[in-house]
């Protein structure tokens, strides 16, 4: 028991700090990568390659003045950044980030809390973050902030559904909601990106919308809403929203890596998930997990600096008219396929099972791309240019 408590406390401390440092570096990465994409250099003055820029920004935010709008609801106004900040960090607790680490006192699973409800916990906590945004918008007593908050909640609700639906397929295959089991299943039968490609695509798009990133950053559309829900915030409270946004990105990326890309699994080898745990295995799998998460974080940034923002009706149309029916239909197809392979043919999940599902997915993806590629979805509401 003592061992559990001590190891958990250490893990909480380390994971919290790694995420905070990661978030800080992510803000720098965002600025530098966007600069490179625009043929600029980006912030490179503070420290080598600008590595201390986040520290300088943080310091600046501590020193800035805290402003309160005259008519704001003081309690909620102060509470809102916290409410969006805390769930963003909480979600990472159930994500396993490396192979178990052997210590002289016993083997430590490399996950802060290996909850039996795993994935359900993530769905529950991650949607709490929207309360922070809505309360921020409402308590600011500013119509633009309020609109931003409303948009955030509407968007969150719309995309939460398709996100949940796309992950049902993962749970069907894994047969368990514990994320360690989801990873173990992928280590045996190949990553779910092969057997559930379309689910990944839906999940990916929904995750972009859930984290309020471009092209779905309607809640803070500066052209329309000044800065949306955080218009009235300054100093560290403003910074909290930023940290929340970026930690949500980290969690979503880690989640994509965990659910569809084998988590900390190193591909093409069973060295990492069989045999006795060792420190080397832990470090190697941690690196693999970091690389996968980093790739998705880069994709986030990459997409942000490529695509323009959706119009509001386009956003809603994409969520409700495209992604939701797609996710539901996909679920029906994939459930049937799994049932057929599992109950009729008596296969258990393994490489052939994954490849068979992969073939189904290939057909579905080709069909969906063909359908989307005809451009009816987004251009439907575009006025015909004479």
């Amino acid at each position, binding site marked *: 028991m003592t061992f559990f408590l001590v190891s958990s406390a250490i893990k909480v401390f380390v994971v919290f700090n790694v995420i905070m440092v990661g978030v800080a570096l992510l803000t720098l990465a965002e600025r530098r990568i966007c600069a490179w994409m625009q*043929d600029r*250099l980006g912030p490179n003055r503070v420290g080598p390659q600008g590595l201390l820029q986040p520290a300088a920004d943080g310091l600046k935010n501590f020193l800035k003045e805290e402003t309160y709008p005259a008519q704001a609801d003081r309690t909620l106004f102060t509470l809102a950044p916290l409410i969006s900040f805390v769930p963003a960090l909480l979600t990472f607790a159930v994500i396993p980030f490396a192979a178990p680490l052997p210590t002289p006192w016993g083997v430590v699973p490399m996950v802060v809390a290996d909850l039996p409800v795993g994935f359900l916990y993530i769905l529950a906590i991650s949607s709490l973050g929207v309360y922070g945004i809505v309360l921020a918008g409402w308590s600011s007593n500013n119509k633009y902030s309020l609109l931003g908050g409303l948009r955030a909640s509407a968007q969150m609700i719309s995309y939460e559904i398709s996100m949940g639906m796309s992950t049902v397929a993962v749970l069907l295959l894994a047969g368990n909601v514990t994320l360690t089991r989801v990873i173990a299943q992928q280590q045996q039968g190949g990553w779910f990106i092969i057997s559930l490609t379309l689910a990944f695509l839906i999940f990916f798009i929904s995750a972009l919308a859930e984290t309020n990133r471009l092209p779905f950053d309607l809640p803070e559309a500066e052209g329309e809403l000044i800065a949306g829900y955080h218009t009235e915030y300054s100093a560290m409270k403003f910074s909290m929203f930023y940290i929340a946004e970026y930690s949500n990105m980290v969690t979503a990326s880690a989640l994509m890596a965990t659910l569809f890309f084998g988590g900390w699994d190193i591909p093409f080898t069973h060295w990492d998930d069989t045999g006795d745990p060792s420190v080397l295995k832990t470090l190697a799998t941690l690196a693999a997990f970091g690389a996968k998460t980093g790739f998705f974080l880069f994709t986030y940034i990459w*997409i942000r600096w*490529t695509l323009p923002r959706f119009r509001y009706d386009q956003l809603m149309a994409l969520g409700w008219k495209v992604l939701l029916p797609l996710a539901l239909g996909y679920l029906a197809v994939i459930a049937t396929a799994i049932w057929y392979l599992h109950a009729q043919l008596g296969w258990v999940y393994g490489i052939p099972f994954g490849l068979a599902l992969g073939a189904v997915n290939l057909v579905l993806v080709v069909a969906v*791309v063909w359908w989307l590629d*005809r*451009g009816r979805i987004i251009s439907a509401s575009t006025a015909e240019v004479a």
Partner: protein
Amino acid sequence: MPIGVKVLKRPTRETSYLRATLSGMALTFSHIFRPKVTMQYPEQRATDDWTLSSRWRGTHRMLTDEQGRAKCVACGLCPQICPANCIKLVPGEDENGHRYPLIYEIDEFRCVFCGYCQEVCPEEAIHVGVHYENSEYSRDRFVYDLERLCAQTHPVSTLWDPSDPKGE
């Protein structure tokens, strides 16, 4: 070089946003590895495609003769033509009848950097300079006196020549 205007045809019918998105992503990705255009200013003051023009009109400089005296003969043309009224000139005359400025001050805050003083000067004494780094710690340091104007070392502006409008 005239500014080229790129005319793009807008799609009049349904277009594939999927392909447009992917090609856009490829474009932004390829830009990551392209050479950057940023000029890192304090270390780098000119690049291959950007140098300060020789016609730049910056803070003034008074040219001097071989003896190190200001070329100015205190004719009074520059304060006369100055549209911002920023030049203060008090003329003096020595025992040989040579005129020289007793006081010659330019308030660089009032100055609009039109370059008329340089154009009108018969002795080619006062010039606007090819120079832009003028920070000081107090406002009164921006009234340049004669000594300071003579001590400036930056290149002087060539101004615009009507007979050679493109500077060729």
